[in-house]
């Protein structure tokens, strides 16, 4: 099939950026979206043009490195799917596809579709951990964890830190990402000692990074490739309130 791509090109943070149109031909339906871009880039290189920069690594939907807004939707229209796992069979021959980077002030564009998500790491630095130096842990069976709690903690822990939730949110909020970590750790007995300080510090860091507030639009869960549920945000807010009133 043949497609028309409209891709955001931006040379660096200072560049204003613009959409540029490219035609790609003979796209196989079995190609992944990134493989389609690889083919375009190979051609651009040989034609002496600058290939389109985009982040990716595992190409298995788990590292969280890839991410583009495709036809206005973070990671594209297929639900619960990262950009790298999206395949061309979901596009129609002759379609026009727009491709843009995550857009949010705390995610400045590095180049083209590549953005800087280090703000996420700083949110984790603020408290997204359990303080347990190597070698100091008790036997793993010392504290049983009810299966339901362990499973719920796991569900929240599957966040891959891709940032789609931020890109989709009209307020540019990082609530789903932050809530996923707070939920994961607050559900486990090991996470209790630092529970309050963690929630408080992480939420404050999220605000300090310039992410917007949550107004419950639910756009984040809709695009989240791991289906992190919206109720994690309610849990985060409750944890934060409790921590702040202490």
């Amino acid at each position, binding site marked *: 099939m043949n497609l028309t791509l409209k891709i955001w090109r931006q040379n660096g943070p200072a560049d204003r950026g613009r959409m540029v149109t490219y035609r790609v031909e003979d796209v196989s339906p079995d190609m992944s979206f990134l493989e389609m871009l690889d083919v375009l880039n190979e051609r651009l290189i040989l034609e002496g043009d600058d290939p389109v920069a985009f982040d990716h690594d595992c190409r298995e939907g788990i590292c969280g490195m890839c991410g583009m807004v495709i036809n206005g939707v973070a990671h594209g229209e297929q639900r619960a799917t990262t950009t790298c796992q999206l395949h061309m069979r979901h596009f129609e021959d002759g379609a026009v596809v727009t491709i843009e980077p995550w857009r949010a002030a705390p995610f400045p564009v590095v180049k083209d579709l590549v953005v800087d998500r280090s703000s996420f790491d700083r949110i984790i630095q603020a408290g997204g951990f359990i303080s347990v130096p190597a*070698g100091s842990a008790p036997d793993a069976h010392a504290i049983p964890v009810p299966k339901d709690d362990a499973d719920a903690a796991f569900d929240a822990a599957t966040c891959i830190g891709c940032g789609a939730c931020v890109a989709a949110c009209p307020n540019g909020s990082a609530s789903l990402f932050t809530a996923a970590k707070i939920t994961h750790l607050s559900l486990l007995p090991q996470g209790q000692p630092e529970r309050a300080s963690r929630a408080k510090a992480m939420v404050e860091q999220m605000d300090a990074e310039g992410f917007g507030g949550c107004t419950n639009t639910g756009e984040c869960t809709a695009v989240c490739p791991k289906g992190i549920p919206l109720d994690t945000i309610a849990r985060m807010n409750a944890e934060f309130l409790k921590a702040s009133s202490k």
Partner: protein
Amino acid sequence: MKDNVNYTVGEPIRDTKAPEGPIEDRWDTRRFQAKLVNPANKRKLTVIVVGTGLAGGSAAATLGELGYKVKSFCYQDSPRRAHSIAAQGGINAAKNYRGDGDSVYRLFYDTVKGGDFRARESNVYRLAQVSVNIIDQAVAQGVPFAREYGGLLDTRSFGGAQVSRTFYARGQTGQQLLLGAYSALERQIAAGTVEMHTRHEMLELVVSGGRARGVVVRDMVTGEIETHLADAVVLATGGYGNVFFLSTNAKGCNTTAIWRAHRRGALFANPCFTQIHPTCIPVSGDYQSKLTLMSESLRNDGRVWVPARGGDDRRPADIPEGERDYYLERIYPAFGNLVPRDIASRAAKNVCDEGRGVGPGGLGVYLDFADAIGRLGRDAVEKKYGNLFEMYERITGENPYETPMRIYPAVHYTMGGLWVDYDLQSTIPGLFVIGEANFSDHGANRLGASALMQGLADGYFVLPTTLGDYLAGAGGFGEVDEKAVAEAEITVREKIEKLLCVNGTRTADSYHRELGRLMWDYCGMERTDESLRKALQRIPELREEFWNNVKVPGDGEGLNQALERAGRVADFFDLAELMCIDALHRTESCGGHFRAESQDADGEALRDDEHFAYVAAWEWGPDGPVLHKEDLNYDYVKMTQRSYK
């Protein structure tokens, strides 16, 4: 020296620094002997850790906790994205929580045997000992392992083990373990003990006064070349499976860091030992950029088959039972579909070579769940494998509940890597190598669920002790020689400039694809004297063409992903050559290394312990590599031929 293949044999390696005495006591002995660094001095000592996967992430965090000044590097935009994140199946540990007869000794025994008697006993024993601490550490960090209703940890048996010792977190064990290590690392970054450099690629090692003293890196965003100095350098940069272009590794996995260290004097051990995983989604076209693993656990319930007759292109459902060949069950009645990875992979290759493969190009076999669905019901199958089935459908567009999966072997893991002693120190003093980047614990074949174990054992427990011993002698390493720094930087700059100014007619990726194809055909699942000699003739020709005809766009000033790739491909060429030399010299078959000339009457791998019970550690030399042999002695596990019939 053998005809057109240039290598020489040097001095054997006699001392691996493992303590003497009963194997159970060696690690305790080493820990007790290890010199300690006084806390006030730790703050004055800088350690560079390159890589933030399970090995590097856990090491950097732990060294930070101990009070060293740590500088950590990775090429991704966050340490959390290291390739370890993709591991699915699980992590082994000799906890014996099931009371099913597991023990440290049994895990040690299984790993030595699984490695086809090409790993060191002392190292493997320590790995098995430390395995139990890893689970404790991970649980304390909040890693949400699978649990049973009573709240205790669940385990499963994996990769043909007869005990249930594999801990897992659904199909995302690597992700959860890495996020645990990552959170510990981020805690140390916040505490100021670790300085993190993301989007920085290591391109050279600085050796001064005979010791590793720093690295030269490129800031991938600004293009700046920076030198970072330290009292010791730790490489945790993962495996080099991407030399085959197509593999289950992440796209950025590379050999550059360890190859540059090799060029500066570190020996490279067993480079030809690669693991081919039997259950991956087959290639669908020329544009294919990577291969996706389907967890080994699927073989617990899926049955592998191909049409009995070549050229049978009926739909699988239309092929009656009597005209199917369930070849693993037929050839290996005792283990059936659960034979180890190397055996399952080669069997798939054989049936495809006979023209009985299925799917595009005939490079695939069926993995069929119809029986399992009939026996257990669709719901039960969905509970167990739902996420894998979904992933399969997403990639292929086919529904595995209705039609069998198509699978084919793919490059997955590299057992070879930089040679290290018992302390995980390479032959360059002060250069330590951990995780998949070293060669130490898996011999010629790695068992499932043991790479995660090794990475974390190295990073949380072994390295922090042995590195301390090395550094206790430091403070006295002196100033780094400016000439050594300048020389390392110049090497880096010259390589970049050279790549940028060729301005030829082919992309780096297209050369990488061709190199990968050549390695797969000639140094892949089956190797022969003839195929390896062909490869050794073709690789230098292709490399020459690459350096005269590659086209790398843009400049070195900012983010330039094509330049990054070209630099990695250049090093893959050199590594590929060494892999083929190693494979050619080892005329036996063992583990993942199958030499067609060395098989028994039934076509099974035939080891040659008399001549090859050694680690082949290669030294780089301008006139071809120099082979140093480290003899392997088995005092505890009796050497036997593996048999799965």
